[in-house]
């Protein structure tokens, strides 16, 4: 009985941590994975439908709300929605002004997108862990992991986007030659040390998006695992741990969104700097 319980618990946890994967299985062709093993077998050419769906939904929600607020924005007394939106915008504007030292009008909207989008995606975590898997199970979907930021693909995907922008702005501001020079001639400005410099700088460059993506993923994934573990308790004891953990996560959710945004601005600011 104990062993049975253990197996159900492990199955439950694995089930909640499995994304709804669509891809080309070596045997079944293009299909939805019906087990974790099948999802792994699909390799790179697969896509997590739940991650994509929920993240796009959250991004669209962000853009819809903010676009609506922007369309009806008055310079007079702002209404409730406009007030809330302006608070966020002003917060991001201040953050950008203090953190970003170059001149680029696109950094603040970029930071706004990152912050609100990640915040919304993280916030999905506050929803009870069982609701959506159950609901989508009824609709015939085997898996449903609704928090996109607990999927390493999503966080690394965004970090990769930031990485591309770092490369783009480095090349734009310093020129391709200047960027190459920076990579090869710092920190030791001598031709014989170019390979050493290159290794050092390229590692430093690649570490940026990797740390960004893994930090967000790690925090969110760990929090999600704890939520799932708490959900394994008897139903009358769940709230005892679930409520404090959820309240604590209000902090973690916003803090992680803030950290991701701030570090992205810092990296982009560094990309704009001449040495």
């Amino acid at each position, binding site marked *: 009985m104990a062993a049975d319980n253990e197996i159900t618990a492990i199955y439950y946890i694995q089930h909640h941590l499995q994304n709804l994967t669509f891809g080309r299985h070596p045997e079944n062709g293009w299909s939805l994975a019906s087990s974790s093993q099948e999802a792994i077998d699909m390799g790179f*050419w697969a896509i997590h439908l739940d991650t994509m769906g929920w993240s796009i939904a959250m991004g669209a929600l962000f853009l819809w709300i903010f676009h609506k607020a*922007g*369309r009806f*924005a008055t310079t007079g007394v702002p209404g409730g929605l406009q007030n809330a939106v302006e608070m966020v915008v002003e917060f991001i504007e201040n953050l950008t002004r203090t953190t970003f030292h170059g001149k680029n009008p*696109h950094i603040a*909207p970029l930071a706004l997108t990152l912050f609100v989008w990640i915040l919304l995606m993280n916030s999905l975590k506050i929803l009870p862990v069982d609701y959506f898997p159950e609901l989508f199970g009824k609709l015939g979907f085997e898996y449903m992991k609704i928090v996109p930021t607990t999927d390493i693909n*999503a966080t690394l*995907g965004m970090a*990769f*986007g930031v990485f591309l922008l770092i490369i783009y702005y480095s090349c734009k501001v310093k020129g391709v030659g200047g960027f190459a020079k920076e990579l090869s001639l710092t920190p030791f400005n001598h031709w014989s040390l170019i390979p050493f410099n290159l290794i050092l700088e390229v590692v430093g460059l690649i570490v940026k998006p990797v740390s960004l993506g893994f930090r967000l993923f790690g925090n969110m994934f760990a929090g999600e695992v704890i939520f799932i573990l708490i959900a394994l308790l008897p139903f009358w004891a769940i709230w005892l741990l679930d409520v404090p953990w959820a309240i604590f996560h209000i902090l973690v959710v916003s803090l992680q969104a803030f950290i991701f945004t701030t570090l992205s601005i810092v990296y982009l600011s560094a990309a704009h700097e001449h040495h």
Partner: protein
Amino acid sequence: MNINMTLIGQTIAFAIFVWFCIKYVWPPISSALHERQKKIADGLDAASRASRDLELAQEQAAQMLRETKEQASQILEQAHKRSSQMVEEARDQARAEGERLVASARSEIEQEINRAKEELRSQVSSLAVTGAERVLEASIDEKAHRKLLDKLAAEL
């Protein structure tokens, strides 16, 4: 935990969201914010200017009130002075007039007395003549005794 196409998909979604935000979301909100900031700053400026103006106006009003009061008291004082002066003058005039009246009355009285004396004198002389005539029963030459009679009258 497998890395797959989702990563690329997420990057593309990220790029599209950022582009949309830069293009359509950020500019109206940001411009509305800045415009309101400017409006509020202008409003505060105007308010402080107005309060300064008000202070100035109040000060002016107080100054004017002070001046007016001063003028009024000056006028009042002048009027007082003038009235007392007038009273004084009237009193002087009255006194002088009285004195004059008294003097003229006195001189009239004197004249009356003199005239009466004169009349009396002339009547006395004729009366004396008549009396003497009666006493003497004789006519006395008026011309011959005129001198004597005049002398007698003067002695009265």
